[in-house]
C-alpha cells in the first residue's frame, strides 16, 4: 500500500509538469494528477510483468540473466547484493531532484500566470521559514500542487531513504573472495551473509558446494575455504540463486523468512511478513566426475 501511494505521486508529478505548462488552468492541476496516476498505473503493470518474466528466466537458469537483472527487477531479490545497487541509487535521487527542480520552476511559473501574486512571491524556499502562504496563521488557500510539492521536498530532506525506493530493498553485503594459494578460494564474510539471510552457515555452505561442484572446509575464523578458483561474481551468482530458492517468499517476495525442518525430513520456508509456508527441496549434490588420477587413488 504504502509504496503504491508513494510511487504514484512521484510519477504523476512528472506528468503534471507538462500538463500544467500546456494548459495553465486552475483546475487542470487535478486533471494532470489524474492522468499521471493512470499512466503510472499502466507502467506499474508492465513493470510487474517484466519482473515476472525475469523471475521465470531466473528459474530457467538462462545465462543471460546476469545482464538483465540489474535493470528490470530492481526491487526484489535481484539487487539483493548491494554491489549492483549502487548504480541505481546514484541515478534515482538525481533524476528526482531534477524533477523537483523542474516542478518547482513549473509551479512558480504557473503561479505567476494565475492571479495571485502573493503566492508567487513566497513560493520558493520559504516553506521552511514559514512565510507567505506557508505562514502559520495565513488563511489563503494553498493549491494542491504546492502542498504536494512541499510534501515531497520535506520527504526528501527528512527521509531520503523513504523517498528513494518504494519498497525496502533487501541488501546483502557482497561476498568477499580471497585467493588462498593457487587453488583455493576463501569466502570471508559468509557468516555475515548467513546472518542477514537468517540461514545457517551449513545450509549455505552445502548449497554452495553442491552448485559449484567442489568441496571445502571452514577455517578458524569461520571463513569458508572452497577448493577451486572462483571469482566474487560467480559466488554472487550462486548466492542469488540460493536466495531465490531458499530465502524469498514466493507469495509476497519478502526475504524475511525462516527455514525450518518439519516432520519426515522436509524443510519448509515460512514467511515472516505474510505467513505463507512452502516446502523446499533438500540440497542434493549431483553426479561429480572424478577429476585427476590422484583423487581416484585416495578413494
Amino acid at each position, binding site marked *: 500500500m504504502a509504496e503504491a501511494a508513494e510511487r504514484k505521486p512521484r510519477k504523476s508529478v512528472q506528468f503534471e509538469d507538462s500538463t500544467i505548462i500546456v494548459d495553465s488552468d486552475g483546475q487542470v492541476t487535478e486533471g494532470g494528477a489524474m492522468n499521471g496516476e493512470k499512466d503510472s498505473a499502466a507502467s506499474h503493470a508492465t513493470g510487474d510483468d517484466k519482473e515476472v518474466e525475469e523471475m521465470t528466466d531466473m528459474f530457467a537458469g538462462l545465462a543471460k540473466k546476469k545482464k538483465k537483472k540489474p535493470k528490470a527487477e530492481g526491487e526484489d531479490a535481484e539487487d539483493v547484493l548491494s554491489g549492483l545497487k549502487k548504480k541505481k541509487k546514484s541515478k534515482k535521487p538525481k533524476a528526482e531532484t531534477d524533477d523537483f527542480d523542474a516542478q518547482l520552476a513549473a509551479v512558480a511559473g504557473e503561479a505567476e500566470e494565475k492571479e495571485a501574486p502573493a503566492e508567487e512571491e513566497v513560493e520558493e524556499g520559504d516553506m521552511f521559514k514559514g512565510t507567505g502562504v506557508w505562514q502559520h496563521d495565513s488563511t489563503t488557500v494553498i493549491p494542491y500542487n504546492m502542498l504536494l510539492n512541499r510534501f515531497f521536498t520535506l520527504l526528501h530532506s527528512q527521509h531520503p531513504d523513504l523517498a528513494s525506493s518504494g519498497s525496502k530493498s533487501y541488501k546483502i553485503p557482497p561476498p568477499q573472495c580471497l585467493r588462498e594459494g593457487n587453488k583455493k578460494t576463501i569466502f570471508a564474510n559468509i557468516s555475515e551473509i548467513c546472518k542477514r539471510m537468517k540461514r545457517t552457515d551449513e545450509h549455505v555452505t552445502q548449497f554452495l558446494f553442491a552448485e559449484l561442484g567442489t568441496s571445502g572446509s571452514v577455517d578458524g575464523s569461520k571463513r569458508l575455504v572452497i577448493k577451486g578458483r572462483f571469482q566474487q561474481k560467480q559466488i554472487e551468482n550462486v548466492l542469488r540463486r540460493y536466495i531465490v530458492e531458499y530465502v524469498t517468499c514466493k507469495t509476497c517476495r519478502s526475504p524475511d523468512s525462516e527455514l525450518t525442518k518439519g516432520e519426515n525430513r522436509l524443510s519448509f520456508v515460512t514467511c515472516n511478513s505474510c505467513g505463507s509456508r512452502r516446502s523446499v527441496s533438500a540440497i542434493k549434490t549431483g*553426479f561429480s566426475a572424478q577429476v585427476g588420477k590422484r583423487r581416484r587413488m585416495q578413494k
Partner: protein
Amino acid sequence: MTTDIQNLKSFDPFAEAEDSVGDQKTASQNYIHIRIQQRNGRKTLTTVQGLPKKFDQKKILKVIKKKFACNGTVVTDTEMGEVIQLQGDQRKDVQEFLTDKKEGLGLDAKTIKVHGF
C-alpha cells in the same frame, strides 16, 4: 458434452494408480541437471545428468561432440545412471541443444536445471 468430459476421462484414477508409482520416481527426478566442474587450471567439465531413458545417450553424445567440437564420454554411475561428460564449459550449448525443437531434443526448458556459477 462428451468432448468436454473427455479431458477428465483421460485421467482415470484407477488406471493411473499403477503407473503413478513408477511415474513419481521419474517425476521427482525428472530434472535434467547440467553441472559444471572445475579441473586444473582454467579447464572445466560439463556433466549432463538425468536425460530421459528414451534417448540413446551414445547417439546424443555423438551429435553433441560433433556439434560443439568437444570430446566427451558416457559415464555410468551407480546412483545417477548414465551421465554425459563433456570437456569444457558447454552448459549453454547443451541447454540450447536440449530445448531446440528442430535440431535438438525439443525438451521442455522447465525440466532443465543449470547449476554452477
